[in-house]
């Protein structure tokens, strides 16, 4: 059986609203206008042990809600969820002992005490035996370079430093599953890269299953073999990043630098959809599904005095934007 299994999960919130103005404010004392927001509509998927899944979608699509349902914070109205054989909201305590959660936007550490003390408190909360704790802390300290941070109060850490501590805190008890809700938000390039590297290693060496929600498509590209897309509370795509690209970003770009300025010939190789020439830079767009790139390159090499040639995919951001547009999400 899959490690994580969701079936038909639905969750709605009641949101109260008040039109502006004093009159409406007075009325709201007696009668509250509410409407229902369907945060999740019949979400279902299953994830095997050791998978690293990217969970993407526009703001307000239901990513965080899904993570909160899976981590036992929210109770859905409908549907089934089995994680490691348990239903998160029914067997909360034994469920959360086996998972780790990192929220990029909310600290899980105690604000005023040094990181070391937070870690020791977590050791006691999770009941980690002293020798295992020491060993694990050493491992994480080396991997995340925490040596100098352990004695500093959490409130004085920079965002990047804090995030490293958050990740360590979520992994101290060796959870088999790790949920990451926007872990790279607001991080600088170096911190992002090292965090990705760490997550990848943790996944490969310890087989920790990870679900990562993010807006940073580089995270997904660097880490995730599988991508799920959610929009308006529905699961819209579930598959590999490669297939996603073929569906939503089939157009590739060839950029060639020419040795000298030339007059372009009339008849270009078949398959080029549009092209332009700016000085010595020649750019052509083609559909990678129908035209193999190597044929185009060899054809172009015969026609033009090439100095350098690069084939580019559409950026993942562009692809996601076009996907959101075509699925009517933006």
């Amino acid at each position, binding site marked *: 059986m899959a490690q994580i299994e969701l079936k038909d999960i639905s969750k709605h*919130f009641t949101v109260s609203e008040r039109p502006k103005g004093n009159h409406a404010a007075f009325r709201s004392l007696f009668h509250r206008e509410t409407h229902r927001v369907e945060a999740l509509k019949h979400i279902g998927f299953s994830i095997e042990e050791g998978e690293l899944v990217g969970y993407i979608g526009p703001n*307000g699509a239901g990513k*965080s809600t899904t993570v*909160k349902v899976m*981590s*036992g*914070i*929210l*109770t859905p109205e409908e549907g089934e969820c089995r994680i490691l054989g348990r239903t998160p*909201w029914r067997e*909360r*305590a*034994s469920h*959360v*002992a086996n998972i780790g*959660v990192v*929220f990029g*936007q*909310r600290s*899980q550490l105690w604000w005023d005490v040094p990181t070391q003390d937070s870690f020791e408190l977590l050791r006691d*909360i*999770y009941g980690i035996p002293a020798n295992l704790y020491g060993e694990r802390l050493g491992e994480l300290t080396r991997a995340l370079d925490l040596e100098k941070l352990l004695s500093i109060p959490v409130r004085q850490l920079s965002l990047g430093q804090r995030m490293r501590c958050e990740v360590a805190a979520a992994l101290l008890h060796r959870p088999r599953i790790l949920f990451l*809700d*926007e872990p790279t938000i607001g991080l600088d390039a170096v911190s992002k890269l090292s965090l990705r590297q760490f997550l990848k290693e943790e996944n490969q060496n310890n087989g920790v299953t990870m679900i990562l929600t993010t807006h940073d498509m580089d995270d997904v590209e660097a880490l995730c073999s599988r991508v799920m897309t959610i929009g308006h509370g529905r699961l819209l795509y579930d598959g590999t990043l490669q297939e996603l690209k073929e569906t939503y970003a089939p157009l590739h770009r060839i950029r060639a630098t020419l040795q000298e300025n030339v007059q372009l010939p009339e008849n270009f190789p078949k398959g080029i959809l549009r092209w332009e020439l700016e000085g010595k830079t020649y750019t052509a767009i083609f559909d990678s599904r129908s035209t193999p790139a190597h044929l185009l390159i060899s054809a172009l090499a015969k026609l033009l005095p090439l100095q350098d040639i690069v084939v580019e995919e559409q950026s993942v951001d562009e692809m996601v934007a076009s996907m959101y547009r075509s699925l009517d999400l933006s």
Partner: protein
Amino acid sequence: MIPQVFLVVITDPIGSICMFARFGSIGEWSMERILLIYSMAITAFGLAETFCRGFDSFPYKMVQNGEFDRVLLRPRSTVVQVMGSVFHIHRAARVLSGCIAIAWCLWQLQIPMTPLKILFLLYSLCGGMLLYMGVFIWTSGISFFSIKGLEWIYIFTNGGYQVTRCPMPYMPRLLKNIFTFLIPILAVSYYPASVLCGWGEPLWKGLLSLPAGIGFLSTSLLMWRFGVRHYRSTGS
């Protein structure tokens, strides 16, 4: 903080004390009697408060800003975690002054204290503590459903022991029923005090304090669990 709480505890019943000093007793009801019942309630309240103050700020500190997420992510009881989230040593002042008041009243009423009676007193204080813990838990549990205008719950928390200042025979029937059957505050104050001093209530009514406390706390815990299911977290 400790002197401050002492001051509140001493000035709280001063209205009743002054009234009794001016007019003497109401029938059999002397000032010492009223004060004994009141101080039993307040000691039980103080004990509960020492452990449960976390529930007091819970709606504002944890539910409103979504901090309860963190509590739910730890493999420990949510009630224990919220209990431990705030600890005020100065809350013990209420317990201390309550105990002193109980001792003084018993001395004034010339009740001989046998070991058995001391045990009985501790027994009913224990019941009272559990009862007030229950009051704290369910009142803050309301915040899972609504976090606006929760001030009225103070009727039951801080106001809960004030009612014991009214002599039982003169208490309106409605209030008597509410505080006997709905929130059994009288079961942990008046009845045990009556049994202790021999004012005519049967022993079994005095012994109800612990079961009443346990029953009320259990009901509150059930309501708490129901509330946790409705926790909505906050957006991120």
